[in-house]
Protein backbone atom coordinates (compact mmCIF):
# COMPACT_ATOMS: atom_id res chain seq x y z
CA UNK A 1 0.00 0.00 0.00
CA UNK A 2 1.16 3.49 -0.84
CA UNK A 3 -0.03 6.63 0.88
CA UNK A 4 -1.32 9.34 -1.42
CA UNK A 5 -2.10 12.97 -0.64
CA UNK A 6 -5.06 14.22 -2.63
CA UNK A 7 -4.98 18.01 -2.75
CA UNK A 8 -8.29 19.70 -3.49
CA UNK A 9 -7.77 22.98 -5.32
CA UNK A 10 -10.41 25.37 -6.53
CA UNK A 11 -11.36 28.96 -7.03
CA UNK A 12 -11.74 30.65 -3.71
CA UNK A 13 -15.25 31.74 -2.90
CA UNK A 14 -16.82 29.24 -5.32
CA UNK A 15 -18.20 27.15 -2.47
CA UNK A 16 -19.58 30.23 -0.67
CA UNK A 17 -21.08 31.67 -3.85
CA UNK A 18 -22.88 28.41 -4.67
CA UNK A 19 -26.56 27.75 -4.07
CA UNK A 20 -27.68 25.66 -1.12
CA UNK A 21 -28.64 22.96 -3.55
CA UNK A 22 -25.15 22.85 -5.13
CA UNK A 23 -23.50 22.78 -1.72
CA UNK A 24 -25.76 19.95 -0.60
CA UNK A 25 -24.74 18.01 -3.73
CA UNK A 26 -21.02 18.52 -3.02
CA UNK A 27 -21.54 17.47 0.60
CA UNK A 28 -23.18 14.28 -0.65
CA UNK A 29 -20.15 13.68 -2.92
CA UNK A 30 -17.79 13.94 0.06
CA UNK A 31 -19.98 11.60 2.10
CA UNK A 32 -20.00 9.10 -0.76
CA UNK A 33 -16.21 9.37 -1.05
CA UNK A 34 -15.98 8.68 2.69
CA UNK A 35 -18.35 5.73 2.47
CA UNK A 36 -16.52 4.11 -0.48
CA UNK A 37 -12.94 4.75 0.59
CA UNK A 38 -13.76 4.01 4.24
CA UNK A 39 -10.81 3.01 6.40
CA UNK A 40 -8.36 3.78 3.58
CA UNK A 41 -8.88 7.47 4.40
CA UNK A 42 -6.02 8.19 6.81
CA UNK A 43 -6.90 11.85 7.22
CA UNK A 44 -8.50 14.81 5.58
CA UNK A 45 -9.53 18.36 6.35
CA UNK A 46 -11.17 21.37 4.77
CA UNK A 47 -8.99 24.46 5.08
CA UNK A 48 -9.92 28.05 5.93
CA UNK A 49 -9.39 30.56 3.12
CA UNK A 50 -5.97 31.77 1.94
CA UNK A 51 -6.76 35.17 3.53
CA UNK A 52 -6.09 33.38 6.82
CA UNK A 53 -2.78 31.88 5.62
CA UNK A 54 0.64 32.92 6.87
CA UNK A 55 3.67 32.10 4.76
CA UNK A 56 6.94 31.52 6.59
CA UNK A 57 10.30 31.71 4.79
CA UNK A 58 13.53 31.29 6.70
CA UNK A 59 16.67 32.87 5.35
CA UNK A 60 19.83 33.19 7.40
CA UNK A 61 18.19 31.87 10.53
CA UNK A 62 15.50 34.50 10.48
CA UNK A 63 11.83 33.78 9.88
CA UNK A 64 10.27 36.15 7.43
CA UNK A 65 6.49 36.14 7.49
CA UNK A 66 4.14 37.23 4.79
CA UNK A 67 0.38 37.46 4.84
CA UNK A 68 -1.22 35.04 2.41
CA UNK A 69 -0.46 31.78 0.59
CA UNK A 70 3.02 30.84 -0.72
CA UNK A 71 1.90 31.21 -4.31
CA UNK A 72 -0.76 33.53 -5.70
CA UNK A 73 -2.62 31.43 -8.22
CA UNK A 74 -6.16 31.40 -9.57
CA UNK A 75 -6.78 28.08 -7.87
CA UNK A 76 -5.83 27.53 -4.26
CA UNK A 77 -5.72 24.46 -2.05
CA UNK A 78 -8.93 24.31 -0.07
CA UNK A 79 -8.57 20.91 1.55
CA UNK A 80 -6.96 17.50 1.37
CA UNK A 81 -7.39 13.80 1.89
CA UNK A 82 -4.64 11.41 2.87
CA UNK A 83 -5.53 7.94 1.60
CA UNK A 84 -3.81 4.60 1.19
CA UNK A 85 -4.18 2.51 -1.96
CA UNK A 86 -2.45 -0.34 -3.81
CA UNK A 87 -1.88 1.82 -6.89
CA UNK A 88 -2.60 5.11 -8.65
CA UNK A 89 -5.56 3.77 -10.62
CA UNK A 90 -7.40 3.04 -7.37
CA UNK A 91 -6.90 6.61 -6.19
CA UNK A 92 -7.94 8.00 -9.59
CA UNK A 93 -11.12 5.92 -9.44
CA UNK A 94 -11.90 7.29 -5.97
CA UNK A 95 -11.24 10.84 -7.20
CA UNK A 96 -14.17 10.46 -9.60
CA UNK A 97 -16.46 10.58 -6.55
CA UNK A 98 -15.32 14.03 -5.40
CA UNK A 99 -17.12 17.25 -6.43
CA UNK A 100 -16.35 18.35 -9.97
CA UNK A 101 -15.48 21.91 -8.87
CA UNK A 102 -12.08 20.79 -7.63
CA UNK A 103 -8.87 20.44 -9.54
CA UNK A 104 -7.22 17.49 -7.84
CA UNK A 105 -3.52 16.85 -7.45
CA UNK A 106 -2.59 13.30 -6.45
CA UNK A 107 0.86 12.86 -4.93
CA UNK A 108 2.37 9.65 -3.63
CA UNK A 109 4.08 9.94 -0.24
CA UNK A 110 7.59 8.61 0.24
CA UNK A 111 8.76 6.76 3.32
CA UNK A 112 11.29 8.79 5.27
CA UNK A 113 13.35 6.94 7.86
CA UNK A 114 14.05 9.52 10.58
CA UNK A 115 16.01 7.06 12.74
CA UNK A 116 18.85 6.83 10.25
Amino acid at each position, binding site marked *: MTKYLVLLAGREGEWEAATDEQRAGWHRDHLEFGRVVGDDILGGEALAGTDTATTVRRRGGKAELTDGPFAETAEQIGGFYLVQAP*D*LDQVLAWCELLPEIYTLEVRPC*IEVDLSA
Partner: protein
Amino acid sequence: MRHRTTPDDDLLRLALLAAHPSLSPQAGAALTLRLVLGVQTADIARLFLVSEATMAARLTRARKKVVAAGVPLAIPGDDVLADRLDTVAKVAYLAFTAGYAPGSGPDVVRAELAGEAIRLVRLLRSNNPAAQGNPSLIALEALMLLQHSRRDARVDGSGRIVLLPDQDRTRWHRAEIDEGMTLLQSLTGGGAARLSSVLAADYLLQALIAAEHARPARPQDTDWVVISDFYRQLDHLTGSPVVRLNRAVAVAEAGDVPAAFALLDGLEDSLGRSHRLPAVRAELLRRTGRDEEALASYRLALGMCGSDAERAALQRRIDDLG
Protein backbone atom coordinates in the same frame (compact mmCIF):
# COMPACT_ATOMS: atom_id res chain seq x y z
CA MET B 1 -4.22 -19.40 -7.16
CA ARG B 2 -5.54 -18.92 -10.68
CA HIS B 3 -3.20 -18.42 -13.61
CA ARG B 4 -5.25 -16.38 -16.01
CA THR B 5 -2.34 -14.23 -17.14
CA THR B 6 -1.25 -14.85 -20.69
CA PRO B 7 1.72 -13.33 -22.50
CA ASP B 8 -0.83 -11.47 -24.64
CA ASP B 9 -2.42 -9.83 -21.62
CA ASP B 10 1.06 -8.92 -20.44
CA LEU B 11 1.57 -6.92 -23.62
CA LEU B 12 -1.66 -4.99 -23.05
CA ARG B 13 -0.77 -4.44 -19.39
CA LEU B 14 2.59 -3.02 -20.41
CA ALA B 15 1.04 -0.79 -23.07
CA LEU B 16 -1.54 0.52 -20.58
CA LEU B 17 1.24 1.28 -18.12
CA ALA B 18 3.52 3.00 -20.65
CA ALA B 19 0.63 5.01 -22.14
CA HIS B 20 -0.91 5.83 -18.77
CA PRO B 21 -2.76 9.17 -18.82
CA SER B 22 -0.74 10.34 -15.79
CA LEU B 23 2.24 10.68 -18.18
CA SER B 24 2.50 13.38 -20.84
CA PRO B 25 1.67 12.02 -24.32
CA GLN B 26 5.28 12.61 -25.44
CA ALA B 27 6.69 10.71 -22.47
CA GLY B 28 4.06 8.00 -22.94
CA ALA B 29 4.96 7.61 -26.62
CA ALA B 30 8.66 7.30 -25.86
CA LEU B 31 8.09 4.86 -23.01
CA THR B 32 5.74 2.76 -25.14
CA LEU B 33 8.28 2.45 -27.94
CA ARG B 34 11.02 1.53 -25.45
CA LEU B 35 9.12 -0.83 -23.10
CA VAL B 36 6.48 -2.40 -25.30
CA LEU B 37 8.28 -2.58 -28.65
CA GLY B 38 11.89 -2.60 -27.47
CA VAL B 39 12.98 0.23 -29.77
CA GLN B 40 16.45 1.49 -28.84
CA THR B 41 16.73 4.85 -27.07
CA ALA B 42 18.92 6.26 -29.87
CA ASP B 43 16.23 5.44 -32.45
CA ILE B 44 13.47 6.97 -30.30
CA ALA B 45 15.60 10.11 -29.95
CA ARG B 46 15.95 10.21 -33.73
CA LEU B 47 12.20 9.88 -34.13
CA PHE B 48 11.42 12.80 -31.82
CA LEU B 49 14.30 14.94 -33.12
CA VAL B 50 16.12 15.21 -29.77
CA SER B 51 19.57 14.10 -28.68
CA GLU B 52 20.02 10.61 -27.29
CA ALA B 53 20.95 12.09 -23.89
CA THR B 54 17.74 14.13 -23.81
CA MET B 55 15.66 11.10 -24.72
CA ALA B 56 17.45 8.93 -22.14
CA ALA B 57 16.67 11.55 -19.48
CA ARG B 58 13.04 11.75 -20.63
CA LEU B 59 12.69 7.97 -20.41
CA THR B 60 14.30 7.88 -16.97
CA ARG B 61 11.94 10.58 -15.73
CA ALA B 62 8.93 8.71 -17.13
CA ARG B 63 10.04 5.41 -15.55
CA LYS B 64 10.57 7.16 -12.23
CA LYS B 65 7.11 8.72 -12.35
CA VAL B 66 5.51 5.37 -13.15
CA VAL B 67 7.22 3.67 -10.21
CA ALA B 68 6.85 6.48 -7.66
CA ALA B 69 3.24 7.30 -8.51
CA GLY B 70 2.29 3.64 -8.39
CA VAL B 71 0.97 3.24 -11.93
CA PRO B 72 -0.33 -0.35 -11.92
CA LEU B 73 0.62 -3.10 -14.36
CA ALA B 74 -3.03 -4.06 -14.69
CA ILE B 75 -6.01 -4.10 -17.00
CA PRO B 76 -8.74 -1.86 -15.55
CA GLY B 77 -12.47 -2.59 -15.60
CA ASP B 78 -14.38 -2.18 -18.87
CA ASP B 79 -15.63 1.34 -18.10
CA VAL B 80 -12.09 2.66 -17.60
CA LEU B 81 -10.47 0.38 -20.21
CA ALA B 82 -12.16 2.09 -23.19
CA ASP B 83 -10.75 5.45 -22.08
CA ARG B 84 -7.31 3.95 -21.50
CA LEU B 85 -7.27 2.34 -24.93
CA ASP B 86 -7.99 5.81 -26.35
CA THR B 87 -4.84 7.02 -24.59
CA VAL B 88 -2.88 4.10 -26.05
CA ALA B 89 -4.24 5.06 -29.48
CA LYS B 90 -3.21 8.70 -29.03
CA VAL B 91 0.28 7.68 -27.96
CA ALA B 92 0.64 5.28 -30.91
CA TYR B 93 -0.49 7.97 -33.36
CA LEU B 94 1.89 10.49 -31.82
CA ALA B 95 4.77 8.07 -32.44
CA PHE B 96 3.48 7.44 -35.96
CA THR B 97 3.17 11.10 -36.93
CA ALA B 98 6.58 11.88 -35.43
CA GLY B 99 7.99 9.50 -38.04
CA TYR B 100 6.53 11.62 -40.81
CA ALA B 101 6.99 15.05 -39.24
CA PRO B 102 8.74 17.52 -41.52
CA GLY B 103 11.82 19.29 -40.27
CA SER B 104 14.48 16.65 -40.57
CA GLY B 105 14.07 15.83 -44.23
CA PRO B 106 13.30 12.41 -45.61
CA ASP B 107 14.64 9.58 -43.58
CA VAL B 108 14.04 5.92 -44.21
CA VAL B 109 14.67 4.97 -40.58
CA ARG B 110 12.00 7.36 -39.40
CA ALA B 111 9.46 5.79 -41.77
CA GLU B 112 10.41 2.40 -40.31
CA LEU B 113 9.80 3.77 -36.82
CA ALA B 114 6.39 5.01 -37.92
CA GLY B 115 5.80 1.38 -38.88
CA GLU B 116 6.49 0.42 -35.27
CA ALA B 117 3.35 2.32 -34.22
CA ILE B 118 1.33 0.17 -36.63
CA ARG B 119 2.97 -2.94 -35.21
CA LEU B 120 1.93 -1.87 -31.70
CA VAL B 121 -1.73 -1.42 -32.61
CA ARG B 122 -1.74 -4.68 -34.59
CA LEU B 123 -0.20 -6.62 -31.68
CA LEU B 124 -2.68 -5.21 -29.19
CA ARG B 125 -5.68 -5.81 -31.45
CA SER B 126 -4.69 -9.34 -32.44
CA ASN B 127 -4.12 -10.47 -28.87
CA ASN B 128 -6.85 -8.94 -26.76
CA PRO B 129 -10.63 -9.02 -27.42
CA ALA B 130 -11.28 -5.59 -25.86
CA ALA B 131 -8.52 -4.02 -27.94
CA GLN B 132 -9.61 -5.91 -31.04
CA GLY B 133 -13.10 -4.43 -30.93
CA ASN B 134 -12.06 -0.96 -29.79
CA PRO B 135 -13.26 1.55 -32.45
CA SER B 136 -10.45 4.04 -31.76
CA LEU B 137 -7.78 1.38 -32.36
CA ILE B 138 -9.56 -0.02 -35.44
CA ALA B 139 -9.94 3.45 -37.00
CA LEU B 140 -6.35 4.31 -36.09
CA GLU B 141 -4.98 1.12 -37.62
CA ALA B 142 -6.86 1.91 -40.83
CA LEU B 143 -5.66 5.52 -40.82
CA MET B 144 -2.02 4.56 -40.26
CA LEU B 145 -2.09 1.78 -42.88
CA LEU B 146 -3.54 4.15 -45.48
CA GLN B 147 -0.98 6.87 -44.75
CA HIS B 148 1.94 4.47 -44.42
CA SER B 149 1.07 2.76 -47.72
CA ARG B 150 2.41 5.85 -49.51
CA ARG B 151 5.84 5.85 -47.84
CA ASP B 152 7.85 4.73 -50.91
CA ALA B 153 6.22 7.37 -53.14
CA ARG B 154 6.79 10.25 -50.70
CA VAL B 155 10.46 10.63 -51.59
CA ASP B 156 11.98 10.90 -55.06
CA GLY B 157 15.32 9.52 -56.31
CA SER B 158 17.25 12.49 -54.97
CA GLY B 159 15.63 12.33 -51.53
CA ARG B 160 13.12 15.15 -51.98
CA ILE B 161 9.59 14.94 -50.58
CA VAL B 162 6.95 14.37 -53.24
CA LEU B 163 3.52 15.84 -52.51
CA LEU B 164 0.40 13.69 -52.85
CA PRO B 165 -0.83 14.80 -56.34
CA ASP B 166 2.62 14.23 -57.83
CA GLN B 167 3.27 10.79 -56.32
CA ASP B 168 3.80 7.68 -58.47
CA ARG B 169 0.73 5.73 -57.40
CA THR B 170 2.16 2.43 -58.62
CA ARG B 171 4.59 2.68 -55.71
CA TRP B 172 1.78 2.72 -53.13
CA HIS B 173 1.45 -0.49 -51.12
CA ARG B 174 -1.87 -1.78 -52.41
CA ALA B 175 -2.20 -4.60 -49.85
CA GLU B 176 -2.00 -2.09 -47.02
CA ILE B 177 -4.57 0.17 -48.67
CA ASP B 178 -6.94 -2.79 -49.10
CA GLU B 179 -6.45 -3.77 -45.48
CA GLY B 180 -7.17 -0.24 -44.33
CA MET B 181 -10.33 -0.15 -46.46
CA THR B 182 -11.52 -3.47 -45.00
CA LEU B 183 -11.01 -2.17 -41.46
CA LEU B 184 -13.01 0.94 -42.35
CA GLN B 185 -15.85 -1.17 -43.69
CA SER B 186 -16.00 -3.08 -40.42
CA LEU B 187 -16.51 0.23 -38.63
CA THR B 188 -18.90 2.01 -40.98
CA GLY B 189 -20.93 -1.11 -41.79
CA GLY B 190 -22.91 -0.92 -38.57
CA GLY B 191 -23.38 2.85 -38.73
CA ALA B 192 -21.66 5.60 -36.79
CA ALA B 193 -23.51 4.57 -33.61
CA ARG B 194 -20.81 2.03 -32.83
CA LEU B 195 -18.19 4.71 -32.26
CA SER B 196 -17.29 4.86 -28.61
CA SER B 197 -15.63 8.25 -28.42
CA VAL B 198 -14.81 11.56 -30.09
CA LEU B 199 -11.32 10.21 -30.71
CA ALA B 200 -12.69 7.20 -32.61
CA ALA B 201 -14.84 9.52 -34.77
CA ASP B 202 -11.83 11.78 -35.36
CA TYR B 203 -9.61 8.89 -36.53
CA LEU B 204 -12.44 7.39 -38.58
CA LEU B 205 -13.03 10.64 -40.52
CA GLN B 206 -9.29 11.10 -41.10
CA ALA B 207 -9.08 7.50 -42.33
CA LEU B 208 -12.08 7.96 -44.63
CA ILE B 209 -10.36 11.01 -46.14
CA ALA B 210 -7.12 9.04 -46.58
CA ALA B 211 -9.15 6.25 -48.22
CA GLU B 212 -10.71 8.70 -50.70
CA HIS B 213 -7.22 9.86 -51.65
CA ALA B 214 -6.04 6.26 -52.01
CA ARG B 215 -8.96 5.09 -54.17
CA PRO B 216 -8.49 6.78 -57.59
CA ALA B 217 -5.76 5.69 -60.00
CA ARG B 218 -5.18 9.30 -61.10
CA PRO B 219 -5.17 12.39 -58.85
CA GLN B 220 -7.64 14.23 -61.12
CA ASP B 221 -10.23 11.52 -60.40
CA THR B 222 -10.26 12.34 -56.67
CA ASP B 223 -13.80 12.84 -55.37
CA TRP B 224 -13.39 16.20 -53.63
CA VAL B 225 -17.12 16.55 -52.90
CA VAL B 226 -16.98 13.46 -50.69
CA ILE B 227 -13.69 14.59 -49.12
CA SER B 228 -15.01 18.08 -48.34
CA ASP B 229 -18.04 16.54 -46.64
CA PHE B 230 -15.75 14.41 -44.42
CA TYR B 231 -13.77 17.58 -43.63
CA ARG B 232 -16.99 19.39 -42.76
CA GLN B 233 -17.78 16.65 -40.21
CA LEU B 234 -14.22 16.68 -38.90
CA ASP B 235 -14.32 20.49 -38.60
CA HIS B 236 -17.52 20.33 -36.52
CA LEU B 237 -16.10 17.52 -34.41
CA THR B 238 -12.70 19.01 -33.60
CA GLY B 239 -12.98 22.77 -34.18
CA SER B 240 -9.32 22.60 -35.25
CA PRO B 241 -8.05 25.52 -37.39
CA VAL B 242 -5.77 23.14 -39.32
CA VAL B 243 -8.79 21.00 -40.20
CA ARG B 244 -10.67 24.16 -41.24
CA LEU B 245 -7.81 25.09 -43.60
CA ASN B 246 -7.74 21.60 -45.14
CA ARG B 247 -11.51 21.79 -45.49
CA ALA B 248 -11.16 25.06 -47.42
CA VAL B 249 -8.70 23.37 -49.80
CA ALA B 250 -11.09 20.45 -50.33
CA VAL B 251 -14.07 22.77 -50.89
CA ALA B 252 -12.09 24.74 -53.47
CA GLU B 253 -11.02 21.52 -55.21
CA ALA B 254 -14.69 20.52 -55.27
CA GLY B 255 -15.35 23.74 -57.20
CA ASP B 256 -16.85 26.14 -54.65
CA VAL B 257 -14.13 28.78 -54.35
CA PRO B 258 -16.34 31.47 -52.67
CA ALA B 259 -17.24 29.00 -49.90
CA ALA B 260 -13.54 28.15 -49.53
CA PHE B 261 -12.70 31.87 -49.08
CA ALA B 262 -15.40 32.15 -46.40
CA LEU B 263 -13.87 29.20 -44.49
CA LEU B 264 -10.55 31.06 -44.19
CA ASP B 265 -12.18 33.91 -42.25
CA GLY B 266 -10.81 34.21 -38.73
CA LEU B 267 -7.95 31.71 -39.20
CA GLU B 268 -5.28 34.45 -38.88
CA ASP B 269 -5.62 34.40 -35.09
CA SER B 270 -4.67 30.75 -34.76
CA LEU B 271 -2.65 30.12 -37.93
CA GLY B 272 -1.06 33.55 -38.37
CA ARG B 273 2.45 32.11 -38.23
CA SER B 274 1.87 29.24 -40.64
CA HIS B 275 2.86 29.60 -44.30
CA ARG B 276 -0.03 27.37 -45.27
CA LEU B 277 -2.70 30.03 -44.68
CA PRO B 278 -1.27 32.57 -47.22
CA ALA B 279 -0.40 29.67 -49.54
CA VAL B 280 -3.99 28.44 -49.60
CA ARG B 281 -5.31 32.00 -49.92
CA ALA B 282 -2.94 32.57 -52.85
CA GLU B 283 -4.20 29.43 -54.55
CA LEU B 284 -7.82 30.59 -54.17
CA LEU B 285 -6.94 34.08 -55.49
CA ARG B 286 -5.18 32.53 -58.50
CA ARG B 287 -8.23 30.45 -59.30
CA THR B 288 -10.44 33.54 -59.33
CA GLY B 289 -8.04 35.36 -61.66
CA ARG B 290 -6.76 37.82 -59.03
CA ASP B 291 -3.15 37.22 -60.08
CA GLU B 292 -1.56 40.31 -58.46
CA GLU B 293 -3.03 39.50 -55.05
CA ALA B 294 -2.16 35.83 -55.54
CA LEU B 295 1.46 36.70 -56.26
CA ALA B 296 1.73 38.83 -53.10
CA SER B 297 0.20 36.05 -51.03
CA TYR B 298 2.53 33.39 -52.52
CA ARG B 299 5.52 35.61 -51.70
CA LEU B 300 4.27 36.03 -48.14
CA ALA B 301 3.94 32.24 -47.83
CA LEU B 302 7.41 31.67 -49.29
CA GLY B 303 8.93 33.96 -46.66
CA MET B 304 7.31 31.95 -43.87
CA CYS B 305 7.94 28.42 -45.17
CA GLY B 306 10.74 26.27 -43.77
CA SER B 307 10.27 23.11 -45.83
CA ASP B 308 12.41 22.83 -48.97
CA ALA B 309 9.89 20.75 -50.92
CA GLU B 310 7.09 23.19 -50.20
CA ARG B 311 9.30 26.21 -50.90
CA ALA B 312 10.12 24.79 -54.31
CA ALA B 313 6.40 24.27 -55.02
CA LEU B 314 5.64 27.86 -53.98
CA GLN B 315 8.48 29.22 -56.12
CA ARG B 316 7.07 27.38 -59.15
CA ARG B 317 3.71 29.09 -58.59
CA ILE B 318 5.39 32.49 -58.34
CA ASP B 319 7.36 31.85 -61.56
CA ASP B 320 4.16 30.80 -63.35
CA LEU B 321 2.39 34.00 -62.34
CA GLY B 322 5.34 36.34 -62.81
